[in-house]
């Protein structure tokens, strides 16, 4: 695995509602690596992802992706970079007025001049990857939660981004469907060398898919390491989070 950082985050501070949601966050993610950011709900994990795709502007710090500081790009340059960064939303934010096929084809229709047959072929291929063959004509509301997440993932990978950001990809799914999503994330990493950042509070998922795991608590990264290192961590916050104990330093 190439360890040259694909994403470098330096001193990232994000302020929302008068308080620091992220404070001096530093992270490096190697090319083709999967970093899992775990932490309690509402701790700022999604905010971190939104900063990384330029949806939120941080108060301070830099986020360098492919050598470009996303916090300083002009709108047109940001859009150009975004074509190479996919994001899978928690909700999962499919366009509900468009069919699944139109959702998946969205990036291609917006940013390429491919002929319609080629677009249809790519859409079918991506839907097959996420196990949703032949579902092109359905609307998102006709899909189950798990299917919506997979359709959202298909939409994200249509334009073959090198970086994919996942916001709670397994939240609200049954264990089997969570595992399907985990396998998909690992498949994309293995087959297409995708660099991924996954935010989650699903521990099983975190340990399964992460090459590196970072723990976010009270706006700062309190620990970062391999899954094994995190499991053995002596940090009381990490320990309490992993064991799920109600007693400990974590304020709930």
């Amino acid at each position, binding site marked *: 695995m190439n360890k040259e950082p694909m994403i470098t985050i330096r001193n990232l501070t994000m302020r929302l509602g008068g308080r620091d949601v992220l404070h001096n966050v530093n992270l490096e993610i190697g090319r083709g690596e999967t970093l899992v950011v775990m932490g309690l709900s509402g701790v700022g994990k999604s905010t971190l992802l939104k900063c990384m795709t330029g949806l939120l502007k941080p108060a301070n710090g830099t986020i360098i992706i492919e050598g470009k500081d996303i916090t300083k790009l002009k709108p047109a340059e940001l859009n150009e970079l*975004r074509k190479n960064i996919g994001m899978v939303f928690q909700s999962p934010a499919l366009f509900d007025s468009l069919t699944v096929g139109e959702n998946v084809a969205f*990036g291609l229709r917006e940013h390429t001049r491919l002929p319609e047959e080629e677009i249809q072929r790519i859409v079918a291929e991506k839907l097959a990857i996420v196990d949703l063959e032949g579902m092109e004509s359905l609307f998102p509301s006709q899909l189950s939660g798990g299917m919506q997440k997979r359709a959202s993932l298909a939409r994200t990978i249509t334009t073959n981004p090198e970086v994919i950001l996942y916001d709670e990809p397994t939240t609200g799914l049954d264990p089997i469907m969570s595992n399907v999503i985990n396998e998909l994330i690992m498949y994309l990493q293995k087959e297409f060398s995708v660099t991924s950042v996954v935010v989650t509070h699903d521990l099983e998922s975190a340990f399964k898919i992460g090459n590196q795991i970072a723990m976010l608590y009270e706006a700062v990264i309190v620990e970062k390491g391999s899954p094994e290192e995190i499991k053995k961590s002596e940090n009381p916050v990490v320990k309490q989070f992993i064991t799920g104990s109600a007693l400990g330093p974590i304020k709930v």
Partner: protein
Amino acid sequence: MLIIIEDFGLSVIRLFEYIGGLVFLFLETLGWIGRGSIRPRLTVEQMAILGVNSILIVVVTTAFAGAVLSLELAKQAVKFGVGRYVGGGVAIAMIREFGPMLTAIVVAGRAGSAITAELGSMKVTEQIDALMALATNPVRYLVVPRFLACIVMIPMLTMFANLAGTTGGGIVAYFLAGIEPHIFLNSIKNTVILSDLWRGLDKSIVFAAEIALVSCFQGLNTTGGAAGVGQATTGSVVYSIILIFISNFLLSAWLFPIH
């Protein structure tokens, strides 16, 4: 007392923020249109949703508005023996004032609220974020087609409204005041000039821009889940109607001066 002053100050700041937001949205929308960044398919779709689906309600409301206007005018006019002028009075009032304004109010209630609800629910379900993450500008993709659809369809609806209102007025004048249709029509011919129609339509273009911008702005700035969508939608109709009334007065004073 200090709290009242503070609240008032905050409200003023919010008002200016809101107006500033609308102006920025307007400039950005014009910027995209100026660069020729127009989606014909999306625009036609919006024109169908906004225009075709609003015809019936616009025609019905303005026909009855014209009818009631004629009823009151005819009553007085016949009393003073000037019933032959009723047609002109009704047509002028419809073409200059009631046609553009009632159409705008009906569309703000029907289509403006739908635009806000749609964009607002897209906002709270992260679909707008998804759009941006897919490197697509939401103003270009969502606002420009709706803005253009409003600018084209609302003046067209206004023409239907003018016709419906004047016809409604004519029918009432005939049946309730005994004013013959040819007298009613003659009065219109002698009173209304083409520039009345154009100026009325100019007003409706301004109203169209107000409705499109307010409803899109409200939608794109929705926060707070389903309740937020409800609030944004109500706000969209209220602010649009307030703007329509204020701008109608200013435009009428400018376009149809007393002297």
